[in-house]
């Protein structure tokens, strides 16, 4: 039973810290992003407890500013942006395309170490006075007036940007040059397309936020004047430069999750995905159009009316490719043979919650409406629906879906379904009241609120405790399963990607023989190598507690 795989091929801490195996590097990432998820989660907990009472139950106003700032920095730069690409993308992309590793394995490891160094700078900032500027670092607060530890934080995020750039570079080159024979572009799994599009955004956007934060940091250290109006500078220039990356950054966070959903839905509907080329194309469209909408974050901060009109119009356009995906996923479900496994529950939850989040983005893109709801909890609810209800559910669903491949073990199915439902309920209870709060006028980033908003805030905090349970449960049973879970075969679901043709867990070199691809993706009818043939009954998914 103990065949050699990537987990037991070599032992010792050096073999992990100096590995160039993309699968081991993915696990290094899993540990570190989970750590930052905890940091961000603890900060969120403190925010929600503080907001139980209108006058603030927990911390001083200055500390409150630090809580939401650090929550944003930790979650966005150190959890959401790396999560799916660095954990699932790193693990799966070579397997999905039939390669032995990524194009540049050593750069892959370097990317993780750069992330760690960046993380240390940011943790140092958190520990020596914190950060109170908002994750958006608007000037001149961040570059001139803030008394918090801005400089180390800005250095840390700058360094972390290179980690993102190297990962994106690796993925783009790998998908171009390392595909197995027969793996043409239109036979690639949609997860690969999603990561290709994500990598385009990483490559084109991240350098701009790097130079922006560098300039803001230099301004702070040497009293330069780029963004300081007292010295002739323009704070809006900072915002243009910052959002040029930070808007496409949200597509870095959501596109990989959409890729996960595109893998889960056909598997648990036992049907080829509807509109493969449209989903592939829409990923590229989102990446491209996502670059021309950034100033919709600046409607009320001082950009010209004509610019606002242009960016509002383009923001409506960017919703279209996302909608195309939702229609195609839903059409895949039609007349499918649905199994309600945990990954499927997460995927279905994603479709609903992402749709709500996405549609509320259109509310915000409407100029007149934005004047009313900008900088309120409406915005907070909007992006949490997409980031948490969308991206994080995609991440957790993906972890579940590929868990048997990564660890060779199955997790307990009943418990996993309960956890998925808990997450969904907790999430909605936390964030739906925030839409109402925002529309009623409760500003974001304020440490107090009018007493008539208390009921909704209490509901939101109650939901947060259920949401927390929804995250802790998988952490517990997934960890448990690594030792005590039922052993998984190569293809428990079964699914049709190349990664499912090799052992679980895979050998270090991924495939004993370089695969040659002759089939179309998501073909559940004609894959005798996977036990899937037209006319014969579909095998049921294997479960950890059968």
């Amino acid at each position: 039973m103990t065949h050699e795989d990537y987990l037991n091929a070599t032992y010792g801490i050096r073999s992990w810290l100096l590995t160039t195996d993309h699968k081991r590097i993915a696990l290094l990432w899993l540990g570190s992003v989970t750590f930052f998820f905890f940091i961000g989660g603890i900060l969120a907990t403190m925010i929600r407890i503080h907001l139980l009472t209108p006058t603030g139950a927990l911390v001083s106003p200055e500390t409150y500013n630090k809580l939401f700032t650090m929550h944003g920095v930790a979650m966005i730069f150190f959890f959401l942006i790396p999560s799916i690409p660095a954990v699932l993308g790193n693990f799966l992309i070579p397997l999905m395309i039939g390669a032995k590793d990524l194009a540049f394995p050593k750069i892959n490891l370097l990317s993780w170490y750069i992330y760690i160094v960046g993380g240390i700078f940011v943790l140092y900032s958190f520990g020596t006075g914190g950060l109170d500027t908002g994750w958006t670092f608007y000037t001149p607060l961040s570059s001139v007036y803030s008394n918090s530890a801005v400089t180390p934080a800005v250095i840390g995020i700058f360094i972390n940007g290179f980690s993102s750039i190297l990962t994106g570079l690796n993925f783009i080159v790998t998908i171009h040059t390392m595909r197995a024979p027969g793996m043409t572009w239109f036979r690639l799994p949609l997860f690969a397309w999603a990561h290709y599009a994500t990598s385009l955004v990483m490559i084109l956007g991240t350098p701009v936020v790097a130079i922006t934060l560098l300039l803001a940091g230099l301004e702070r250290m040497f009293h330069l004047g780029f963004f300081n109006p007292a010295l002739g500078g323009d704070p809006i220039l900072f915002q243009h430069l910052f959002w040029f990356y930070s808007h496409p950054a949200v597509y870095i966070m959501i596109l990989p999750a959409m890729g996960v959903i595109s893998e889960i839905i056909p598997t648990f509907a036992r049907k080829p995905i509807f509109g493969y080329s449209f989903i592939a194309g829409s990923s590229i469209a989102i990446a491209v159009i996502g670059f021309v909408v950034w100033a919709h974050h600046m409607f009320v901060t001082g950009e010209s009316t004509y610019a606002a009109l242009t960016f509002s119009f383009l923001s409506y356009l960017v919703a279209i490719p996302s909608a195309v995906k939702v229609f195609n996923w839903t059409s895949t479900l039609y007349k499918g043979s649905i199994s309600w496994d945990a990954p499927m529950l997460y995927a279905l939850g994603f479709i609903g919650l992402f749709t709500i989040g996405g549609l509320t983005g259109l509310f915000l893109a409407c100029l007149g409406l934005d004047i009313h709801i900008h900088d309120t909890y409406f915005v907070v609810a909007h992006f949490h629906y997409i980031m948490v209800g969308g991206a994080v559910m995609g991440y957790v669903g993906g972890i579940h879906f590929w868990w048997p491949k990564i660890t060779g073990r199955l997790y307990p199915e009943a418990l996993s379904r309960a956890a998925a439902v808990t997450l969904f309920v907790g999430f909605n209870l936390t964030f739906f009241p925030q839409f109402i709060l925002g529309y009623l006028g409760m500003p974001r980033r304020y440490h107090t609120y009018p007493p008539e908003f208390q009921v909704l805030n209490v509901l939101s905090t109650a939901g947060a405790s259920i949401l927390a349970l929804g995250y802790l449960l998988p952490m517990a049973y997934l960890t448990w399963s690594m030792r005590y879970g039922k052993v998984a075969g190569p293809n428990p679901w079964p699914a049709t990607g190349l990664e499912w043709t090799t052992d679980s867990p895979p050998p270090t070199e991924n495939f004993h023989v370089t695969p040659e691809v002759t089939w179309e993706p998501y073909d559940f009818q004609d894959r005798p190598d996977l036990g899937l043939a037209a006319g014969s009954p579909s095998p049921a998914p294997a479960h950890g507690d059968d």
Partner: protein
Amino acid sequence: MSEHIVSPKIYFAIFASLMLGTGITVWAAFQNFGKLNIVIALVIATIKATLVVLYFMHARYSPKRTQLVIICSIFWLAIMLGMTLSDYDTRPHEMQPGVTRLEPPAAPQAFTA
């Protein structure tokens, strides 16, 4: 992919053109062409850059994919510059940087690192 070896003759010809371009740029800077001065400088710089990309960097002999990569980088730079400038160009005069003059603080209250 058979490798195309560019001959040193071409390299030296390109070098000569780049030297000529540099000379013209400096000469033109000392003439008064008004608003055209910056245009001339940028056009010559772009021609020089194009020669370096095409011949020194072998883009002329590279696969289409490389050429697409180059064009994308220029296109994205153009988006960033163009759309940001469209904000500044359509702002009213008093919203332009530096126009509405602020009194600088007498004693700096800024944070000192």
